[in-house]
C-alpha cells in the first residue's frame, strides 16, 4: 500500500501542464489620471450698476437730506467653488461725491449703506460702511461663514439702510460707490 502511494505521488509530479495553464493569461494596465484645480467663479452681476437717482429730498421737512431708499438687489447667478472650505467676502465703499472738497459743517459728501451677500453659507457676508461726513474711512469689509462643501448657487447682494453721518445735508454733485464681492478659500485661522 505504501508503494502504491509513492507511485501516485510520482505520477502527480509528472503533470506540470495545469500549472502552466494558470499563468497563461496576461494582464496589461494603463493607468489614467488627471486633476481639477480648485477654483471659484462668480456669476455676472445683474444689474451691474445700481442707479439710485436723486439722493437728497428736494422738498419737505427733509429737504437736502437723504431720501429713504428701498432695498436694492443684485444677483450673481451660478456662482460656484469646486472645493470644500470657501468663504464669501464683501467689501463696500460708501457713496462719495466726486468733488472731494471737505464739506463745511452740517454738510456731508458720503452716503453709507449696508451690503449683505447671501446664499452661500450659514451666515451672510455683511458690512455697513461708516464713512465720515468728509468721506474718510469710506471702505469696510465683511466676511460670511465657511461653506464646508463644494457649492453652486445664485448669490444675492442686498443694499439697504442708506444713511448719512449726522443726517447732514448732502453736498450737490455726483456720487458713486462700489461693492466688491469675493469668493475664495476660507482664511486660515
Amino acid at each position, binding site marked *: 500500500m505504501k508503494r502504491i502511494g509513492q507511485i501516485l505521488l510520482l505520477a502527480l509530479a509528472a503533470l506540470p501542464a495545469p500549472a502552466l495553464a494558470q499563468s497563461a493569461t496576461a494582464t496589461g494596465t*494603463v493607468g489614467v489620471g*488627471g486633476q*481639477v484645480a480648485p477654483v471659484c467663479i462668480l456669476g455676472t452681476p445683474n444689474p451691474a450698476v445700481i442707479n439710485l437717482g436723486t439722493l437728497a429730498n428736494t422738498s419737505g421737512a427733509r429737504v437736502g437730506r437723504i431720501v429713504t431708499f428701498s432695498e436694492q438687489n443684485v444677483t450673481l447667478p451660478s456662482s460656484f467653488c469646486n472645493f470644500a472650505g470657501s468663504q464669501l467676502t464683501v467689501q463696500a465703499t460708501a457713496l462719495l461725491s466726486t468733488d472731494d472738497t471737505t464739506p463745511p459743517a452740517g454738510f456731508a459728501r458720503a452716503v453709507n449703506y449696508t451690503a449683505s451677500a447671501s446664499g452661500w453659507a450659514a451666515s451672510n457676508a455683511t458690512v455697513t460702511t461708516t464713512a465720515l461726513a468728509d468721506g474718510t474711512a469710506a471702505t469696510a469689509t465683511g466676511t460670511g461663514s465657511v461653506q464646508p462643501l463644494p457649492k453652486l448657487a445664485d448669490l444675492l447682494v442686498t443694499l439697504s439702510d442708506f444713511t448719512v453721518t449726522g443726517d447732514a445735508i448732502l453736498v450737490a454733485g455726483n456720487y458713486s460707490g462700489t461693492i466688491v464681492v469675493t469668493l475664495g478659500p476660507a482664511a486660515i485661522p
Partner: protein
Amino acid sequence: MRKLLILAVPLALMASPAFAQSATGTVSIDGSVAGRCLFTTPSATISLGELALGGAGGTAGKLDTTKVDGQTRTLVGWCNSSAATMTVTTTELTNVASAATGFDNRVDYTATAVANAVNANDSSLTPASGTASAVGLFTGNIVVTLSASSTPNSALLVAGTYTGKVEVTLSPTV
C-alpha cells in the same frame, strides 16, 4: 561421389547473408507548447492634466472632454494560441473628495484596445468587463485609446486628483 561434396560448399556460402539482417529501433519524441499570452510591456500611464474647462462662461468648471478623448498608449505582448481572446476592463476616474449638489466627482469613458487588427472595448458606465474578442495568435502592439468621456450629471467637477485604469487581459483560450 567426391565431386558432389565440392558443389555443396558454394551453396552453403551463399546462404550467409540471411544471418546479418538489419534491425531498427525507434525513439519517439514529442512535446507540447501550452497556450500562453504575455505582455512584454505590461503597463503605461496616461496623465490627463487639468480636466475642467477654464474661463468664466457657462461651461467653466465642467469636464473638458478633449483632455480625455483620443488619449492613447501602447502596450506590447503576444499570444501563441489561435483561440486567444482579449478583454478590456475599465475603472472610471474618481476623486475621493465628496461631491455636492451640482457637482460630479467621477469621469466615465470608453477604452478600446486594438491588437492584431481586432478591437475590444469597455465602458466604465457599466461595472462589468467588455466582451471578449478573438484576437488569435499574434505578437506586437496592443493600442489602448480613450473616448466618449462624460460625467454623471454633466455638472461641475470637484477639485482634486482623479484616478482610474484600463486593464487589458489576454487569454490563450476562450
